[in-house]
């Protein structure tokens, strides 16, 4: 069963190869098989030579001993003419050899013609077996092995093998002796004295056994080669799958890069154009305020109001630009971005943020970095906005198995945890990467966010 599946896979592979225009590595694969096949051919040649020479030589000895009449009595049937046995069987076997060469050359190109050649081989082999008194049927095994080697079409291949096996089973002296008048090869051997008989019988069975051994070896190599081909196929297939995955990653990165570029451009434009305009307006307003001081208190107040709105707008724009830049994760590293974040908080003056890094920092995937950054950012915002904390501690610990992120504040805390949209989103992301997030808080006991993100294998192996 396994064998058939292996074979089917090979044929599929061959078809795929042909479709894709690749050369099916037929020759290289079958080199070893061909050597064994040649050895089987040579051995069969030796067997034919043995059988026909025994017939020839024994006949000569019988005539020399004047035992021809008695031999005909024992033989029961009209024996083949000795020189014809020798000439016909060797000649036919050489033709089989020539046919094998042709089949090898046209194996893939003309499968039907190769099958026809196989049929003619079958007839030749039957003819040889007939000439050898049906006492040797190893030639059918040679044909069967040849079918595996030379006939690529699966239907034709198995038809050929079935025919060879039928030949192997039925072209047997013991079966045919019932219907066809043939002299037993044994009759020739029994003409000799017992010592010689033992010698000849041993030679005969040695040749038979060797043929079987070589056939077994042939099929062993055949199965081996099919298994190897199958493995190769699976390997190539896996490689292809990996490549596709890599391509998808690259594609995503390219998309990210394009997005980032667009955001950068947007950030720069807002910063340069809108920022510049607002700065000019603010400077202009400052001059106007100075000029209007005392003359028109109303105007002065209004201008002051406009100025503060403008300044606020300018600050908002700067914050937006920074966020745009942060969102694009245009950072040389996560830690740097986190330091910037902490510094921004400290600049505002009301809250003190402290960043603590433990262990050997590892490079994370962009998505992961973004998630960690968002987690810290969201937590800081919450600490300042809702917790009114004076101190926030950001602790990033790089462990062997993963990364531990702890954000703790001394704010007013909360009796219940209400997760806002941003927090939920981050939680989902961390879980997606196989990580966990925990929140600890109580009334007037501050707020602790503790997350764990496992490191990917590539990172670990780096």
């Amino acid at each position: 069963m396994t064998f058939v599946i292996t074979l089917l896979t090979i044929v599929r592979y061959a078809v795929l190869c042909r479709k894709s225009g690749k050369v099916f590595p037929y020759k290289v694969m079958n080199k070893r098989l061909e050597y064994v096949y040649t050895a089987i051919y040579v051995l069969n040649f030796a067997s034919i030579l043995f059988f026909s020479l025994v017939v020839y030589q024994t006949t000569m000895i019988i005539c020399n001993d004047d035992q021809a009449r008695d031999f005909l009595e024992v033989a029961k049937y009209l024996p083949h003419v000795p020189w014809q046995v020798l000439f016909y069987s060797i000649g036919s076997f050489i033709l089989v050899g020539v046919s094998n060469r042709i089949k090898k050359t046209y194996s893939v190109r003309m499968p039907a013609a190769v099958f026809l050649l196989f049929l003619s081989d079958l007839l030749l082999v039957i003819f040889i077996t007939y000439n050898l008194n049906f006492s040797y049927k190893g030639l059918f095994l040679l044909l069967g092995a040849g079918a595996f080697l030379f006939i690529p079409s699966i239907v034709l291949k198995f038809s050929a093998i079935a025919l060879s096996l039928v030949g192997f089973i039925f072209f047997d002296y013991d079966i045919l002796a019932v219907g066809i008048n043939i002299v037993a090869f044994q009759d020739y051997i029994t003409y000799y004295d017992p010592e010689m008989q033992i010698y000849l019988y041993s030679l005969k069975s040695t040749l038979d056994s060797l043929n079987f051994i070589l056939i077994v070896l042939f099929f062993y190599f055949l199965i081996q080669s099919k298994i190897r081909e199958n493995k190769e196929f699976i390997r190539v297939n896996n490689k292809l799958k990996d490549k596709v995955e890599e391509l998808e990653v690259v594609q995503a990165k390219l998309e990210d890069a394009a997005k980032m570029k667009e955001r950068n451009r947007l950030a720069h434009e807002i910063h340069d154009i809108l920022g510049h305009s607002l700065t000019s307006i603010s400077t202009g307003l400052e001059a106007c305020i100075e000029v209007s001081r005392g003359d028109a208190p109303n105007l002065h107040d209004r201008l002051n109001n406009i100025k503060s709105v403008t300044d606020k707008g300018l600050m908002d724009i700067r914050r937006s630009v920074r966020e745009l830049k942060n969102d694009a994760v245009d950072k040389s590293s996560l830690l740097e971005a986190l330091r910037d974040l902490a510094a921004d908080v400290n600049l505002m003056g009301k809250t003190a943020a402290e960043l603590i890094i433990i262990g050997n920092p590892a490079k994370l995937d962009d998505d992961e970095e973004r998630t960690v950054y968002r987690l810290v950012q969201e937590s800081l915002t919450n600490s300042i906005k809702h917790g009114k904390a004076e101190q926030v501690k950001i602790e990033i610990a790089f462990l062997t198995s993963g990364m531990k992120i702890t954000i703790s504040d001394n704010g007013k805390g909360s009796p219940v945890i209400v997760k806002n949209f941003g927090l939920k989103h981050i939680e989902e992301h961390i879980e997606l990467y196989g990580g966990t997030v925990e929140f600890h808080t109580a009334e007037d006991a501050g707020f602790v966010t503790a997350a764990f993100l496992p490191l990917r294998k590539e990172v670990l192996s780096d």
Partner: protein
Amino acid sequence: MTGRSRSAKMQEQKDRGRIRGNRELTAALFLFAVLVIGIMAAQYRQKAVVIELSLYSGNSWGVPQNFAYAVYDRAAEMFESAYAEKNYHIVLKTGKMYKDYSEWFAQLVLTGREPDVFLILEEDFNTYASIGLLENLDPYIAKSEVFSAETLFPIALEAGRYRAKQYSLPISMVPSFLIVNKTLFEELGLQLDLENWTWEQFYMHCAALTADTDDDGELDRFGVEGYDWHQAFYTNGMELFDPAGASAGFDDDRMIEMLEFLKKIYDLNKGYVVRDGDFEKGRAGFKTFNVSEYRVYGSFPYKLLRYDDFEWEAIPFPSGPQGASTSKLYTVQIGMSSRSSHKKAAFSFLELIAGSDEFQHKIWEETNTLPVNRFVIESLYTDEKVQQDGVKLLDKGFLENILTASYIDPDFKNYSYIDDIVTQRIFKIIAQDEDPGEGVKDLKDDIRESLTYIR
């Protein structure tokens, strides 16, 4: 056009060119083959058809024949002139004596060099028919316009049949019978009653003939020379094998009768063996005889050499209590090889040799056997030339009777081997005075064993 597609196109053109080249080469080879076959066929037609014929000198009935091959030379001449337009030729392979022929011929068969047509020894016929060396002649006979099996004596034809198929045709035949020393009978005052010619009478005469004439204490006159179990067996209405050839086919009672009769005859001689030539010297009353001897010694000049001191006469074999008179018919058989490449021509030769009246006349003229063609034999009795030559012809009625009643050996492979075994066994029963009932049982066992061994 890119470089790659250009090179692909060039390759394609090259391939196409190669295929065209191949086709032209194939066509040329095919034409050449047709030419060679045509020339060979033309030559084959022109070539003479040479048919080989192997012969032996001597025969199974042991009577010498002068110029043994002469009649076959005649056959070859007649055949070649009859088929001159077809360029048929006969080449004779001669030089083997009867006793050496079997092995010599077997060697030719074994090495695939047997001639197209050949004489077949009686002992070889069954073997060669059964192994498939002999061509079945029935289809040829059925198609033949000139040959009719009805013209031949049926029993002579029967000798060439194996398992209901005709494998050989008879050329000539030699019937056998008994001869009696009439002079001796007259001297002893014995009377032959051929109307009531039975074993009993035969034994009585043998008993009367057996004597020690010079009173030296040893027998010197006997009843019969050359009489053995075969004659007794067949005249008591028995068959050696059952029709399937698988076991002994004879009836125990008849066999016991035969053994007792042979024992009586044997006992008469008191252990003395009747030798070849005792009859000739007038020391035996009966002798087994055949047509060949009859033709040689019954007519001038050979008559002077033997059997001239007394009057003698041909008589049938005596019949047993449960059978009728019968005698062995010797035949000369000719067959063709199933491996011959000129079977049609070969059969034409057989047709001539067995069927042509002219050649059958030559058999009478140039051999001391009888033609197998019944019309030729009939014509001899009216032919003045034959009468003038002083040839002693057997009485026509007698000849017809023995020919009709004669037997041939069973068409059974290895028959001669089993025949030897039976002969030895019977001799043992008779000579060692075994109980015939027990002997028959043993004999049957021996035959069964031999048959099993052969198979």
